[in-house]
């Protein structure tokens, strides 16, 4: 009886080990990888687009100079145009703002007379801007010397080129079409800004 009992127990051993075998277990450890990408906008220096320059000298640093602002015979404004491109990127929905400091080309010398009957004292011009799928226009009418700006919403991250086309129309002035322009140095500052909405 004793031996039988032992053999009986042995016969059950394999069954008893089954739960133990089920304990074979894999072990998995998860390690998160984290980071962030802050809001970034960049705007490189301007470059003239080839073949898009009419009556402009070219770009020097941040300055774009008109070759011959007036017709030497009539003293009326001569047409001029230029297209400038800026490599740019904004990695989030944003706005682009173009701002004219003077609302036209105005005398840079503050001592210059601004009330000379029969003469124009400022020159209007247009700026057209393209950025990604968005575009806008800012017209500087030169009627009042003041800031003027245009804001364009851009609803997605954009990378590429900001294209700015500047144009002075023939005879444009704040004194009427083809009015003679008072002698002096005329200028304006255009500022392009990529920024949060």
């Amino acid at each position, binding site marked *: 009886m*004793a*031996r039988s009992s*032992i053999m009986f*127990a*042995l016969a059950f*051993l394999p069954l*008893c*080990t089954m739960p*133990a*075998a089920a*304990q*074979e*277990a*894999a*072990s*998995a*450890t*998860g*390690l*998160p*990888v*984290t*980071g*962030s*990408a*802050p*809001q*970034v906008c*960049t705007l490189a220096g301007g470059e003239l687009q080839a073949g898009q320059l009419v009556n402009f000298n070219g770009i020097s640093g941040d300055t774009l100079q008109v070759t011959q602002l007036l017709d030497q015979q009539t003293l009326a404004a001569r047409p001029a145009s230029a297209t400038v491109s800026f490599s740019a*990127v904004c*990695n*989030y929905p944003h706005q682009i703002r173009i701002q004219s400091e003077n609302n036209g080309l105005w005398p840079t010398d503050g001592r210059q007379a601004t009330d000379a009957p029969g003469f124009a004292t400022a020159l209007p011009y247009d700026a057209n801007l393209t950025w990604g799928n968005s575009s806008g226009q800012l017209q500087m009418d030169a009627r009042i010397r003041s800031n003027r700006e245009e804001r364009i919403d851009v609803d*997605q*991250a*954009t*990378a*590429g080129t900001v294209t700015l086309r500047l144009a002075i129309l023939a005879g444009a002035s704040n004194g009427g079409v083809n009015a003679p322009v008072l002698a002096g140095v005329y200028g304006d500052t255009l500022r392009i800004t990529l920024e949060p909405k």
Partner: protein
Amino acid sequence: MNRLKFFAALAGVVISAPAQAQSASDSADFAVVGNVPAICVGGSVTEAGGIFDLGILVDTTTGFLRSDLSAPSQVLAGSFCSSRSSIAVAATPVVAQTFTATAPTGFSRSVDFTATAAGWTTIPASFSTASASNPAAIQQRTTAFSGPITVNIGDFATTGGTGLRLVADTSYRGTVTVTLTPES
């Protein structure tokens, strides 16, 4: 009294009879059995709570992925397997968590990388999130082993190409998973 003594003596004989039968020797075998199940334990992480924190992913002057991205190694200390085993490493790309739409043209919302787990096998297990196939992700060890596993990540690349920039997002997240599996 005498009668009483007699019965007492008789009873003593009857009871003692089985005791005389034990005088023959006998033996019995008892099996003492046990087993050690095949178990693997991944150990505990010692570095920075087990998080690969890459910080800021982009060069803020260009918007492109930083070329110097790195994170300290993570060590799974006290790892062991009581039998032969395999180690497997898997990973998912580091993906923007808030920006879930398709990235605009010129942008990506994901960063690929390669994760390696070294110290368990001669050849570290390695997994690249940019690869469709990762044959080196599983490595076998023929003996039981106990020791630390060092996990590293590197070879970062913007998903879709290096010419893409990452969309802004305060939370990018991916995972590395190291699995020890006992093998019979």
